[in-house]
């Protein structure tokens, strides 16, 4: 399925884009994470959460939606 993936904060700096469409054929969020790390190896060392269709989801959730977001924590104040 075609996923629209949004990147935030330092993740967007690492992928060099705020958003992109990716074809993805696996089932879980953990698989998706692995596929993204294969595409962007530097992601491996980063902390981030994944949102699917505007809801934060865990690694074992099923990829069902077309909109994914990668959110790193920010510490600045």
């Amino acid at each position, binding site marked *: 399925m075609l996923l629209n993936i*949004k990147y*935030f*904060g*330092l993740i967007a700096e690492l992928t060099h884009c*705020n958003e992109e469409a990716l074809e993805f054929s696996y089932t879980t969020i953990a698989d998706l994470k692995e596929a993204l790390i294969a595409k962007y190896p530097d992601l491996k*060392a*980063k*902390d981030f*959460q994944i*949102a699917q269709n*505007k*809801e*934060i989801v865990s690694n074992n959730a099923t990829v069902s939606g077309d909109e994914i*977001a990668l*959110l*790193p*924590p*920010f*510490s*600045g*104040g």
Partner: protein
Amino acid sequence: MSRYNRHIVLSDIGQQGQDKLSSAKVLVIGAGGLGCPVLQYLTAAGIGKLGIIDFDIVEESNLQRQVLFGTSSLGMNKAIAAKKRLEDLNQTISIDAFSEKLTTENALQLFKEYEIVVDGSDNFATRYLVNDAAILCNKPFVYGAIYKFEGQVSVFNFNKGPSYRCLFPNPPKEGSVANCLEVGVLGVLPGIIGTMMANEVIKIILGFEHVLSGKLLCYNSKTAEISTLKVNSNQSEFDKVLNNEILSDVYESETCETSIKDISEEELTTIKDIQFIDVREPHEQPKLAIKNCIEIPLGDLETNLQLLDSDKTKVAFCQSGIRSKKAVEILMKQGFNDTFNFNGGISHLIEALKQNIYE
């Protein structure tokens, strides 16, 4: 009272709502980029009792965004300087300034004195401490955080809603996410995010619906895009804190910092053979253009220990002294005891070398 007339004439607030604001007690952690606008609007709104805790000093580089301060505040403690400015804005409210660091020792006592906590801190250790103390004291806290051109806002621990740990269960490794000091931040961004945080505080006090609980608002100042994402509660994240495992973890990371030895500009003169270690990323400027300086980004330090000269005293530096502190911690764990942190960052180091303090 004419001061609050524009609130009182709003049918959703009225005198009754204004009275709620006047009897509310709010504690603001950090009087920096986020804390300043939060404090400014809460003071103007007539929040009855405000607490401000910040151990830091006003520096010139803060004035680009920390709007409560002026040149006359330079060198002053931020909590005290903020109180001074805010008392001029509204002398009818009570403001307590605490010029100290929020720690596991003072957090619970302090939180108990207030009804709502606002997290405007600038580091993960404090953010997790605020979360955990808020859970233990059963107080809602309004969260805001910024990175360069982007910000996040949410309300945690409110009416059984999620906590910060439900969103980000584990603190990132210290130094893996740089703060404003190190990477820069658009000046108006904390103004926008801080104002949204003040708005959430006021909504909670007035009992409005649609408090930003269970949601994370993400704002991008470059694209003017806002994404609001749903965050679910995870009871096990609360249990971690309620079983009191977590506060002790954060405390431990704080206590091990005390073993890090800082070196002053003057002390640099007393040491003969120094090897400087620049632990910043390769693109960061300015460089320290001297022979006895090696560049190893913090993340690569542990795998490049062979580059260190064991006969020399090692002095680590970065943009501001935060990553270099982490570097010293790593090196000391690896047995390099003759290692110091230059706390002032590259600009002070260059200045010190220019003045020939160090030959």
